[in-house]
């Protein structure tokens, strides 16, 4: 993998993979929902939508088909730390993919009619999410766990802001953050590095450096007591979610906690883009045995994602019919307390490492997934975090896991959320 920085500040990562005649291009921006101020929640995600609507050199009516003519797919996503766009297509589409991304960086239009049309599309996306009780609970839990840091609001934004945001709000935000010195371009696939780099220079070299946006944020103060919330809404199923403030990707406790999550709920790997495709290996995991095997829950899932600032480690459980949420919570907390007091065994450590080793192989099975990983880690810290991950995982000791468990699983550090369904009216 070669890392280069263009004169305008654009970081470029290129990795050759000659296993298929494909190339994947991702352009990452260091802007996400944590950069949003009150009144503009959801603006990062809405900008992402607007950046598929045509540019100065890609007429609106020619967006459709621009990558499909190469058999390619394109997409994008926004989360708390980042916004990213991708194309994966046959290798002969490399020039087209770079053209699209250079246009997206500098020449999007934000036509007022498109802004209004997309407003209702995004509100529809928000309402679709609200249909899912688990997603609703996740949103409420995050908002309760954070009182100062901007991780507290949902990436899609609050409905009131989505109704009032203007075209100028969106365009101003776009111009501020979409500058080469705030971006990382990643190319992985059946390409020649030198030739690819020359193409990158041709497409992006003339884009002017911008003022590097400051990312001032209020750090989340230490939580001083357990927080709780209960959503009472019509539904058929009860859900429990427990969240703990967790270390960032660069914190020494991150990988020990990743091991601990594997012991508790099975290893997920480190790929936000692909790890949801296949459930974790968890039949022998502690929380699966304590909740699912005992019939208290039909599913349990842990989530620790690499983030730039300290975010949350969450554990979610779906209560089985007629099982009170209090019983699920008690069994779950008992297991976490046990981990906090006694740590994990050497056998568990060995198994968790084996799981993570396998998952990291499985999660880099395509040029798209490899490119995602390089760009994701570069955007939240450094690509070295990804390159070094296997060694960092291998170096984790059972003592380090026990220490992380003690620090993270304190009662005062947790937020507990219930979705307690009301019978249909």
């Amino acid at each position, binding site marked *: 993998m070669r890392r280069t920085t263009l004169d305008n500040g654009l970081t470029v990562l290129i990795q050759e993979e000659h296993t298929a005649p494909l190339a994947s291009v991702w352009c990452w921006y260091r802007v996400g929902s944590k950069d949003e101020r009150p009144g503009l929640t959801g603006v990062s995600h809405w900008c992402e939508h607007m950046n598929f609507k045509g540019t100065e050199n890609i007429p609106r009516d020619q967006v*459709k088909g621009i990558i499909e003519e190469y058999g390619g797919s394109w997409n994008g996503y926004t989360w708390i730390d980042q916004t990213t766009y991708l194309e994966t297509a046959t*290798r*002969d589409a490399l020039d087209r993919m770079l053209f699209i991304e250079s246009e997206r960086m500098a020449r999007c239009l934000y036509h007022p009619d498109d802004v209004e049309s997309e407003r*209702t*599309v995004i509100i529809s996306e928000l309402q679709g999410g609200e*249909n899912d009780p688990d997603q609703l609970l996740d949103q409420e839990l995050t908002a309760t766990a954070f009182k100062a840091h901007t991780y507290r609001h949902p990436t899609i934004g609050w409905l009131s802001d989505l109704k009032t945001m203007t075209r100028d709000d969106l365009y101003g935000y776009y111009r501020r953050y979409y500058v080469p010195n705030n971006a990382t371009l990643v190319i992985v696939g059946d390409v020649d590095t030198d030739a690819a780099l020359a193409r990158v220079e041709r497409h992006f070299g003339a884009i002017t450096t911008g003022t590097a946006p400051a990312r001032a944020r209020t750090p989340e103060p230490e939580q001083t007591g357990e927080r709780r919330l209960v959503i009472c809404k019509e539904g058929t*199923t009860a859900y429990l979610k427990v969240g703990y403030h967790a270390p960032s990707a660069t914190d020494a406790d991150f990988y020990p906690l990743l091991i601990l999550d594997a012991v508790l709920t099975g290893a997920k790997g480190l790929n936000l883009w692909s790890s949801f495709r296949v459930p974790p*290996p968890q*039949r022998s995991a502690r929380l699966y045995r304590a909740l699912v095997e005992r019939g208290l829950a039909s599913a349990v899932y842990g989530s620790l994602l690499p983030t730039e600032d300290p975010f949350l480690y969450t554990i979610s459980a779906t209560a089985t019919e007629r099982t009170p949420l209090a019983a699920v919570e008690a069994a779950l907390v008992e297991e976490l307390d046990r981990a906090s007091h006694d740590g994990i065994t050497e056998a568990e450590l060995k198994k968790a490492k084996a799981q993570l080793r396998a998952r990291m192989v499985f999660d880099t099975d395509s040029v798209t997934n490899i490119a995602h990983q390089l760009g994701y880690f570069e955007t939240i810290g450094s690509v070295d975090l990804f390159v070094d991950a296997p060694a960092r995982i291998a170096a984790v000791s059972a003592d380090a896991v026990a220490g992380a468990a003690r620090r993270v699983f304190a009662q005062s550090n947790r937020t507990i959320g219930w979705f307690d369904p009301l019978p249909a009216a």
Partner: protein
Amino acid sequence: MSSSGRMSDAVVQSAPARRGLEPSRTVLDNGVVLLAKRTSTTPAVAMNLAVRAGSAFDPPGRAGLTWLLSRVIDRGTAAQSAADIAEELDSRGITLTIAVTRHLFSLVCTCLADDFEPVLALVADILAAPSLPDAEIATRKGEVVTAIRQDGDNPAVRANEALMALLYPDEHPYGRRTKGSIELVESLAREELLRQHAERFAPSELTAVVVGDVEPERTRDLVARVFGGWRKPPPPPLALPLPVRASARRRLVLPMMNKSQADIAYGFVAARRRDPDYYACWLMNNVFGQYSIGGRLGDSIRERQGMAYYASSALDANVVDGPLAIRAGVSPANVDRAVASIDREVAAIVADGITQKELDDSRRFLVGSIPRALETNAAIANFLQIAEFFDLGLDYDARLPALLGSVTLDEANAAARRILDVDRATVVIAGPYQD
């Protein structure tokens, strides 16, 4: 093209030539079919073992039996306990996914190449000799009942299930809920699960596909070793009733007033996978509800009218006529407008057809996407499994561009006229909406 160029300057280059998959195919003397393909992208192996024992084989009145069997089958064998199996899989970082479609019961996993031999042996043991312990059945029933309750609170699932029940009435296997009903699941006994397994799981019904960093010869030896001794007579074939196309428009509203968004499912009985016009149907549907962001439907409902986050159509051609289903998620205030927009798009494609450019664009996309669709071991394994099930041939991936290439505009438009009809559409709306 340069960054300052215009789109119209684009010169479309031809996609790089690719070699066909060229898997090796072996049939053991007991009838087990093996498809093996060597790749070396990662030091891993994908396995896809499918038995022709899907939910369509549920006995009359027992919909849900196969689904429960799929939840229990890997919870113990004659030789190993559920805990042994869990430990064996977890210690290698493997998730065994057990999927049930109308026709197939599949065990799918990816393992490191070093683990291939013991994992294949374990999966074979699970498939051929499950013990189905009572305690495991009881626990898994609780999970299935919870999942059915969750489905009942999900407008998208409810709309889709109701659409299928209307398109395939009278207990047709395509119209039944795969998970069944809570009452049925709670009534299922271990003996029924054992009987279903004994009657439907036989070597003649199994296709094992193995793709990854392992030599096909070694795969053949291992498959012969783990399955060669499995002896059972072939079960009788399934007699599927032929679906009947709707004779009039139907509309069903399922009010779910606790929800924020409504789901629309709008469909037709459409096509068989082996229909002569299947490729015309596929291309027509791609233009209609797939290409780019949802084809014509996405253009109208999402891009031009801003009514929905998603609007698309899916063609599920099957052994007998499967459905073409249009789906959209819209705000309750927009339900009537969205249904009217779908009606307009259906009427337009039937009356005026698609254009040659639309056909060519979709064709170029589908042909060009083949290398991407066959990049990973798991994707190749799934592709080969489907090709084997529908008897499409070992060179199907190589022939696919020509099959798509031979479809004419007249054929694609004839497919639209054959399947789509506003006056015979079945429309289901689930969500915060009432007539």
